[in-house]
């Protein structure tokens, strides 16, 4: 089976069980298309997820798939990656699954730089459990568990990832096929842990929470699409640019036409700017925000072991590796 596969070949026979109109559909579609474009082999691809609407994802992709338990997908995926580093392991998680109950595992998978491609479907709500506020919900979110509005300050997935020592952080919008597809490919090509935050619309419990910048009509004005080495421009005619202001250490919007030389060029390896980009609200930065290649955890782990997980010695010998004596 080395024929060329199409997006359809990556779809399973299972009926997709998300609410009609849910952003997850679009992500699924772009994912299967991207797999086909990448020439991925179904047998050496695995999707590992936790629990949540997002985490139903593996049921719909014709590769290996494991729908595990709430919050633990990164840990399970780490075990799989150590057991068989040749498998392309995608982790699918939600803002609750990955940042609430599963925050610690995500933290440590990122810190260790395990070669996982982690897709965080951020809808700023707990979808599957019927709409409670999540760790990314904005202050004041009214939900069944916060009828008067939530008082928790939200976590920024980007800040969290950088704080965890992540070496790859990118962002995309559920329905933006091109942008999402590109980011998925970049993540796939990255050796270590790649975290991709996907702004995903939950039409039932948090409809249009990102509409302000995801709406196509606002896109040009409210989205900053980053490309490594390219100036940070946006606006209908790329007439606006981003400048670093060294006086107050901030990113600010300038007229790109009048002072083009002041427009910052995107350098994926610049962590300081990455910190500023993930906090930038107007416009919202999309694409690969930070990328710093280096050895993956599994690579270092195997490098430290002479023969990988293969046996190079016998138990019979090991049993005798200490003082022994013979009774006759």
């Amino acid at each position, binding site marked *: 089976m080395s024929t060329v596969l199409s997006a359809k070949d990556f779809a399973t026979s299972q009926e997709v069980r998300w609410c009609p109109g849910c952003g997850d559909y679009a992500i699924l579609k772009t994912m299967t298309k991207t797999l086909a474009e990448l020439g991925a082999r179904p047998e050496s691809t695995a999707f590992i997820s936790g629990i949540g609407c997002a985490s139903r994802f593996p049921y719909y992709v014709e590769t290996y798939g494991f729908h595990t338990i709430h919050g633990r997908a990164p840990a399970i995926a780490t075990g*799989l990656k150590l057991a068989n580093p040749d498998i392309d392991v995608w982790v699918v998680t939600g803002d609750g699954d990955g940042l609430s109950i599963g925050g610690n595992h995500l933290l440590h998978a990122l810190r260790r730089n395990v070669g996982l491609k982690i897709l965080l479907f951020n809808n700023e709500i707990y979808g599957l459990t019927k709409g409670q506020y999540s760790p990314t919900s904005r202050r004041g979110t009214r939900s069944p568990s916060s009828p008067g509005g939530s008082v928790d300050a939200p976590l920024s997935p980007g800040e969290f990832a950088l704080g965890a020592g992540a070496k790859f952080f990118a962002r995309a919008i559920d329905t933006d096929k091109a942008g999402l597809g590109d980011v998925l490919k970049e993540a796939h090509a990255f050796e270590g842990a790649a975290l991709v935050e996907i702004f995903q619309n939950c039409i039932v419990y948090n409809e249009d929470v990102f509409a302000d910048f995801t709406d196509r009509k606002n896109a040009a004005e409210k989205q900053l699409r980053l490309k490594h080495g390219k100036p940070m421009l946006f606006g209908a005619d790329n007439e606006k640019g981003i400048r670093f202001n060294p006086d107050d250490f901030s990113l600010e919007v300038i007229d790109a036409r009048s002072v083009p030389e002041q427009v910052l060029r995107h350098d994926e390896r610049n962590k300081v700017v990455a910190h500023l980009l993930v906090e930038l609200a107007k416009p919202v930065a999309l694409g690969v925000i930070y990328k710093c290649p280096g050895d993956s955890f599994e690579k270092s782990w195997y490098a430290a072991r002479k023969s990988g997980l293969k*046996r190079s010695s016998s138990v019979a010998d090991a049993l005798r590796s200490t003082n022994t004596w013979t009774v006759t």
Partner: protein
Amino acid sequence: MSDQISMDSIVVRLAGDSGDGVQLMGSQFIASTALSGKDFATFPDFPAEIRAPVGTTFGVSAYQMNIGVSPITTAGDAPDVLVAFNPAALKVSLPLLSSGALLIVNNDSFTARNLTKAGYAEDPRDTGELDSYQLVPADIGRLNLEAVKPFGLSKSDGGRCKNFWALGLLMWMFDCDLLPIEDWIRQKFARKEVVRDANLAALHSGHAFGETAELSEAIPRFKIRTADLPAGEYRGITGAEALSLGLAAAGELADRPVLFCSYPITPASPLLHRLSRLGELGVGTFQAEDEIAAICAAIGASYGGVIGVTSSSGPGIALKTEAMGLAVNAELPLVIVNSQRGGPSTGLPTKTEQSDLYQAVYGRNADTPIPVIAARSPGDCFFVAIEAVRIALRHMTPVLLLSDGYLSNAAEPWRIPDMDDIEPIEVNAAPGPDDTRDAQSLAFERNAETQGRPWITPGMPELMHRLGGLEKDIDTGHISYDAANHQRMTDMRAAKVESVARFIPPQTMELGPQEGELLVIGWGSTYGSIFQAVRKIRKTHSDVSYTHLRHLFPLPENLGGLLGNFNQLLVPEMNMGQLSTVLRDQLGADPTPFCKVTGQPFLISELAEKMESMLPPVVVAACKPVAKGEAR
């Protein structure tokens, strides 16, 4: 040379501050006696603090060993020899000693300060309270410092050699060959020459002290008969060593790598430490961020076709519970090792207990049965590890393996098994692609005998399927909320675990006949004590038998029958009666529990006493006075 005292066995206890190197000294002494062909059992007993405050009773670290002719199965009730490095060590150990025991005390430590710290108002060497013992005061501190002086160590560094000084003395008393231990010191401290030489000097100085003091005939020498162990090649082994090697052996027998995923916790950590040195045997280790990540990584490994193993002790096992449910539901192999310790909660981390049996057998949400097996002795850990992996792979199920703090650290001489004698472990092969059924169904085609499904793992072409923790259709593995299917799946999971009982050998007696008055039922690390106690009682009561369970869930199929052959059942446990519950539940038995929860192993004497109390008094016909009016 003074006459040697010949004995069948002897119990020696070393006790001192946590920093005195007592554990090292003990294990080295045992290594030497092992090489001279003796049977032995050890019991290391140490405080929870890394270095508890110097001189206090709660900071005392002790190492007790029983050496002699086979079978030695416990570290002994009452020490015959005590080496006490300070007053606190003396104070803590005194109540345990056999009368007339030999007391070697470090004179230099009996300062006013240390006496107070130990809670002595007066120096016990002066009050007469040691009169019933054989006191050998030795200026261990001073003599050791003198011995190491040439090497220019600081006073505190030099003082650290005193365990070797005392070891030298012991070696003399027990007439052991110094060579192996000298070699060991040379190797261990190869990179620190000064320390190496100082330790060697201390060792020799202690040895010489024996020779010299001998002149005054104050110090006895012991000649312990050599063990009549079965023929074979032997080594000393602790439970942690045996368990790690057993897991590696299982990997070899199944021809699969092993991934051991764990998070440090007392007393489970030694397994992680040992396995992290067994890379050449195809064993990988992963120190996870917590116990949940550890079991999850192990599940991920099993999902990836490698034998996933995780390990912890009670509190950490509690955290793994949810993920165990996933492994059951996903029908993946997994071994979960629990090195039990005293609880509840943080409890007594360094003390031993068998109180996680409830947790193992019943401790999950939903109907989530998991086979449970337990090791009985350090060496047995090797075989139990293999058995656990065998069950896990045959039935595609997680297996709980119970060890405990005592077993982990205790040592015994062990006949090295021939790996060729051990049956290979079979893996449920992945089917070839099949046109009539899709991969999803193939992945859940279970063996009718074992309910084990094929071990299909990512990387295998044409067998891609989806797996998850939601209820699955019994045939296709797809998500199913169907009522009848849930019943069938629940029944299947129960049947799977029950089927384990059909693959295990029938329960046998360790001692005694197949029927009689009293059957003692044990499990886990109490084996040694119960064995000795029943052996003792059987001298007067031949109708007492002893059986010891390896398989706790499911129980061996013939066990109910065996239990029915006795009038009384006694279940000694280091918990509040947990096996008794299982026997009542599973077999409708009515056992008498005998419980001890002190963090200390059973004494042979207390077990024997309990049995006595359940049995008719021994009638010594000739002397028995007949009470007036008593019907005969």
